[in-house]
């Protein structure tokens, strides 16, 4: 049995699961990361680009840390053990002590022996649809799930395999064993995380769109695959029926969303955005493409999404058609598709397209219902996991937690937030603090001055390399390079053995520099460096040359030229190896305390989670009272009362011994030193300075004060929040109410606030329903631009319409007019359905005002955080680090991040606590190896490098010369580029060194 009561089982290795596992691993927990698929990553590896930045999605390879590839990280993390292709058979025990029986399905291929020659896949007679990419391509019964699959190994799918044995016959290394048996293992864990994710809606169920019948109708999953640069067309959008270029493309939204008749009453939240993204990508690839999107309401309500949608319309000319599609018909001669749709005014139109993409919605994973039932986890009506509104990471079972799309449809940033949030809840639940294992390394010998003795190790990698490279010749030529004293081949039996042979040779041959030539260094670098450190060899004296992916594979069929290039790549690596110097990484201690600014729900949640994990917290609140905006919330759309929750939270904060509360206080200044922060806090009693290792900003936002529609001039005009209070206290003024008009997007999606405030649609629906409950006879009109009741909020929108609330759409160019006439309020608006102006009597006019951030400018300056153009804090990476400042240890959450529901603020509060704890859990933080330094005599003190450094790792010292703060330097190289005197240099990437290496390439 593996594990103990402090270990964690994460089921589902998608984005949420990987995020939770990585953070728990960083906190020192042992994590078992399980997935039923043969490769981890969920839907993540399918994405070529992600919205709203259109940056590469496959590995979040943005140049600035904390960008990372969660798949590789999970694979390499020392505290994470992967269980791919596994299923949970049985769960016994209870929260704090579970025994989980895990069943590992046989892969039938031994990854240690397989050389990826591909002979088996060629002879396999069985062809089925490849799951990856929604069946756009075919695969064999023996297959690699997708090109970058991790673990990187072939697998035989026993369902379609006919056991003909052909693959066994042709497999040279004998890696295939059709008799391989399933393995069972028992794990002991204290907590379980459910990250099952989602499944795309089965598009065949909507027969009227013809998926599976018309070849040029694709699902969005298939189209995503088609647009991927690794697709068979290289990302160029062509028609499946005849391979012709697509000129007219249609997207049909809400396929399996907002559709009670297919059992899918919810909104899938992300389809508007992904369709917009796919439309833009397709246009990027083929600029003469015309794209039409058929939609009901457009819902880009995440941070910076509205702008993205506007850009798609304006810059890309994508046509959005508000309509209901009644049918898709295929023309038989051209295989074009005719879409018939009914417009808002009730008239029908028809358009012809080359191809149609169905934007399929989210369904809960179908296979886990039984497992959820056995665990006792309650699911909602749609089959997603149910959680309390104020406890978003907790399932109905003690010790079982949930995050991500298994809880309902959500986008990547939210999923990353929830994966982090669940990590915090698990860490709080497993109270015992794990003991950190600090590994001891032998002292490294003094290296650097002596004559280089270089050993080159070339990974054989079996057939694959031999087929495309002339190995013997390559080895001979490398032998002839200067200062290369040893050339060896690694047989690639197993990484462990290969490392051992490098180790032995270093000793035998007295090597002081090593070059490893083979596949991508990504997977082995960490292990190689670890091996080196273990034997007292400086790991930065090892160089890698990629002669597989970047040479043999891309130039297959040209062995002569490929060999020449491989030799050049190795020569460059050798040249580098001759000149590089051993690097020593410093480390600095961490002040294991946190500072939280802002005592609203988000800030308090973050504080409490940190304190529960044993870290001291300084909580600073400007007001005399805790609670923030939540003090004015009286009921939620699901009918719960936030006030008891808030009281309980405040009580816990006030009574926790590790939380130091500063009420009526302000942050005056903050200085950094070696990763420590010292912040001065001003209170009525004077000033106090506190030291801490992380900063969490949760300074909130506020309801926008409307400047139009007679607000402030007529007492009958109020905001939703004021209306909520009036309903809650059964205000007598509402006694003879007959008619209420609500206007949406007041102060949102306009020039002054060009973003969607996300919560106002559901807020209006909530108040309308409450009012209808109290006074069913009152007429309620909601004037809207798009109804954005995303996710499960959609069911309440549906309910409101069923109860007689009337929704009338208006255009930004033709806003409703409010008229006061003989003491009565009238709202006049053009109704696009009736195609005329209607006049509504309003006993009360309720304005759905947007949310704006508080003024964070001075705070942003104090903490060196950036604001976006709307005044919200700007994240390091909107996908992978949505709550993180650029500089390590700085976070923000709640309304100062973006407009959000209380539920999301709680998730964010949890999430920043986890991300902060991942830093605080370590005694010391290692500095980055390839840091920048300044050649003082060349520095003219212009300060350019100080300006460009994204991490605040640069200062001008008293002499007016630039200086690097080692603890903060991330080694990005920006300063090197900026410096005009070549005074800024980066260790082992010095200008001279780089030039010599380049010279060796062209010599």
């Amino acid at each position, binding site marked *: 049995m593996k594990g103990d009561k402090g270990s964690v089982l994460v089921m589902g290795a998608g984005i949420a699961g990987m995020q939770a596992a990585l953070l728990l691993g960083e906190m020192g927990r042992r994590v078992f990361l399980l997935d039923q698929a043969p490769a981890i990553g969920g839907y993540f590896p399918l994405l070529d680009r992600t919205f709203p930045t259109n940056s590469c999605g496959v590995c979040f390879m943005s140049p600035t840390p904390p960008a990372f590839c969660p798949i590789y990280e999970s694979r390499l993390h020392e505290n994470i053990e992967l269980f791919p292709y596994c299923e949970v058979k049985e769960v016994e025990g209870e929260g704090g002590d579970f025994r989980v029986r895990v069943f590992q399905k046989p892969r039938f291929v031994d990854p240690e022996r397989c050389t990826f020659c591909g002979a088996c896949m060629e002879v396999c007679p069985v062809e089925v649809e490849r799951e990856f990419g929604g069946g756009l391509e075919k695969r064999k019964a023996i297959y690699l799930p997708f090109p970058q699959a991790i673990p990187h190994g072939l697998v035989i799918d026993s369902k379609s395999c006919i056991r003909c044995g052909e693959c066994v016959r042709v497999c040279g290394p004998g890696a295939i064993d059709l008799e391989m048996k399933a393995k069972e293992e028992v794990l002991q864990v204290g907590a379980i995380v459910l990250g099952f994710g989602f499944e795309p809606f089965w598009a065949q169920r909507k027969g*009227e769109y013809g998926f599976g019948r018309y070849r040029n109708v694709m699902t969005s999953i298939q189209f995503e695959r088609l647009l991927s640069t690794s697709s068979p067309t290289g990302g160029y959008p062509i028609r499946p029926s005849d391979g012709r270029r697509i000129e007219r493309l249609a997207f049909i939204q809400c396929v399996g969303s907002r559709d009670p008749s297919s059992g899918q009453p919810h909104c899938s939240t992300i389809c508007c955005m992904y369709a917009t993204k796919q439309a833009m990508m397709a246009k990027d690839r083929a600029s003469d493409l015309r794209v039409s999107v058929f939609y009901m309401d457009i819902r880009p309500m995440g941070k910076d999404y509205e702008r993205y949608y506007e850009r798609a319309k304006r810059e890309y000319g994508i046509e959005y058609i508000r309509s209901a599609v009644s049918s898709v018909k*295929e023309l038989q*001669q051209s295989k074009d598709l*005719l879409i018939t749709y009914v417009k808002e005014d009730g008239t029908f139109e028809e358009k012809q397209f080359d191809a149609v993409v169905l934007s399929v919605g989210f369904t809960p994973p179908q296979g886990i219902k039984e497992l959820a039932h056995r665990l006792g986890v309650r699911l909602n009506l749609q089959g997603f996991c149910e959680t309390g509104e104020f406890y978003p990471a907790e399932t109905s079972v003690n010790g079982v937690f949930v995050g991500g799309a298994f809880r309902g449809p959500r986008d990547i940033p939210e999923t990353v937030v929830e994966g982090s949030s669940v990590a915090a809840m698990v860490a709080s639940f497993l109270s015992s603090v794990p003991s950190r294992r600090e590994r001891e390394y032998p002292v490294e010998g003094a290296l650097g001055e002596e004559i280089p003795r270089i050993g080159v190790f070339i990974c054989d990698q079996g057939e694959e390399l031999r087929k495309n490279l002339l190995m013997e010749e390559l080895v001979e030529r490398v032998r002839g390079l200067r200062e290369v004293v040893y050339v060896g081949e690694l047989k690639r039996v197993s990484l462990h053995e290969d490392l051992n042979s490098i180790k032995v040779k270093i000793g035998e041959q007295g090597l002081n520099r090593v070059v490893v030539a083979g596949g991508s260094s990504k997977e082995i670098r960490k292990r190689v460096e670890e091996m080196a450190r273990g034997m007292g060899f400086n790991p930065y004296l090892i160089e890698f040359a990629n002669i597989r992916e970047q040479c043999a594979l891309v130039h297959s069929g040209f062995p002569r030229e490929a060999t020449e290039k491989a030799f050049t790549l190795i020569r460059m690596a050798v040249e580098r190896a001759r000149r590089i110097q051993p690097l020593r990484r410093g480390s600095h201690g961490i002040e294991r305390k946190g500072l939280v600014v802002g005592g609203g729900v988000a800030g308090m949640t973050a504080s409490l989670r940190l304190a529960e994990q044993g870290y001291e917290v300084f909580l600073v609140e400007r007001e005399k009272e805790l609670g923030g905006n939540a003090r004015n919330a009286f009921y939620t759309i699901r009918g719960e009362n936030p006030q008891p929750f808030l009281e309980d939270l405040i009580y816990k904060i006030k009574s926790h011994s590790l939380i130091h509360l500063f009420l009526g206080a302000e942050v005056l200044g903050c200085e950094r030193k070696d990763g420590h922060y010292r912040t001065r806090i001003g209170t009525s009693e004077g000033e106090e300075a506190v030291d801490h290792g992380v900063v969490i900003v949760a300074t909130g936002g506020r309801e926008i004060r409307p400047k139009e529609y007679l607000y402030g001039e007529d007492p009958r005009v109020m905001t939703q929040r004021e209306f909520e209070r009036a309903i809650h206290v059964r205000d007598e003024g509402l006694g003879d109410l007959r008619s209420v008009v609500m206007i949406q997007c007041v102060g949102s999606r306009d020039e002054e606030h060009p973003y969607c405030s996300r919560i106002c649609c559901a807020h209006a629906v909530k108040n309308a329903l409450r009012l209808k409950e109290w006074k069913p006879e009152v007429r309620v009109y909601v004037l809207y631009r798009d109804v954005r009741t995303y996710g499960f909020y959609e069911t309440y929108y549906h309910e409101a319409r069923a109860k007689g609330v009337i929704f009338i759409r208006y255009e930004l160019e033709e806003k409703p007019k409010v008229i006061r006439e003989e003491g009565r309020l009238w709202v006049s608006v053009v109704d696009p359905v009736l195609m005329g102006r209607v006049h509504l009597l309003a006993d009360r006019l309720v304005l759905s005002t947007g949310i704006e951030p508080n003024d964070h400018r001075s705070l942003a300056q104090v903490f060196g955080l950036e604001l976006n153009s709307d005044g919200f804090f700007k994240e390091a990476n909107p996908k992978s680090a949505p709550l993180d400042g650029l500089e390590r240890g700085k976070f923000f959450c709640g309304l100062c991040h973006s407009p959000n529901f209380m539920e999301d603020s709680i998730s964010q509060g949890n999430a920043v606590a986890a991300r902060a704890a991942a830093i605080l859990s370590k005694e010391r933080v290692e500095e980055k190896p390839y840091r920048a330094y300044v050649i003082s005599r060349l520095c003219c003190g212009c300060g350019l490098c100080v300006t460009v450094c994204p991490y605040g790792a640069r200062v001008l010292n008293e002499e007016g010369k630039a200086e690097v703060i080692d603890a903060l330097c991330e080694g990005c190289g920006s300063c090197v580029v900026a410096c005009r005197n070549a005074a800024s240099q980066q260790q082992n990437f010095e200008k001279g060194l780089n030039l010599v290496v380049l010279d060796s390439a062209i010599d």
Partner: protein
Amino acid sequence: MRFSYFPGCTDRSSSMEYGLSTEEVFKALGVELVEVEDWNCCGAAATHSLNRLLSLCLPARIISKALLSGLSSLVVPCAGCFSNLKRTEYVLRNEQRDRRVIEEIVGFRYDPSLEILALLDVVVNRVGLERVYERVRRTLKGLKVACYYGCALVRHPKVTRFDDPENPQSMDRLMRVLGAQPVEWSYKVDCCGADLAMTYGSIVRQMVGRIVFMAREAGAQAIVTSCGLCQMNLEMRQELGLPVFYFTELMGVAFDIGQRERWWGKHLISPRPLLESLGLG
């Protein structure tokens, strides 16, 4: 093999050729159709929009008469009749209160063991395509047909419980067995306009025009139907001159049944030239 048989009004009037061909084809297959005694109109496409109860009681009376035959299955050739009878069956099976009222009015006890089947369903799934194939005397080689099911035969799927509501295949399979070539097309379940033909001819002309145009676009030489009203609309309101058959007529051609000249005389667009061009005259 015996079935209780409700021909419906049209089989004796506007779609007489459907009725005649059905009876002769079944005779050839050795399947006996026992006509329901004293049957009445099913209410057609008008009653349900005027009086819901009446629209249920008229088919219920037919069901009550069919029950008297003692046979377990009732066959209905016309898709409109089929739809009305199935809808009534659904109510009788699932709505207890309505069932009592209907039984009271019609004066019978409903027995759910009686199944109501479309004629096409009986040919394809009860008689079976093998038995049909054995009876084929000359294959319809070279004949490209667009199988048109109309809207009532397969919808609502919960009520009719027959074939795929968006892309039905029964008739296509039958045509293949007869040697004809059914074309792929997307309009097999579109509405022909039904009895709007009498009141709003222009609407029907538009709807039929689209269906016939698309059948020809798909390469069909003729359309095959299974409903008297559909056939009439498609023939009467089109301008392209595409012949429209009942599936039983084409079975008759393949079975080489002698009296078929009588059927062709009932068509507004004569199928003779087409059949002759393929040597099937």
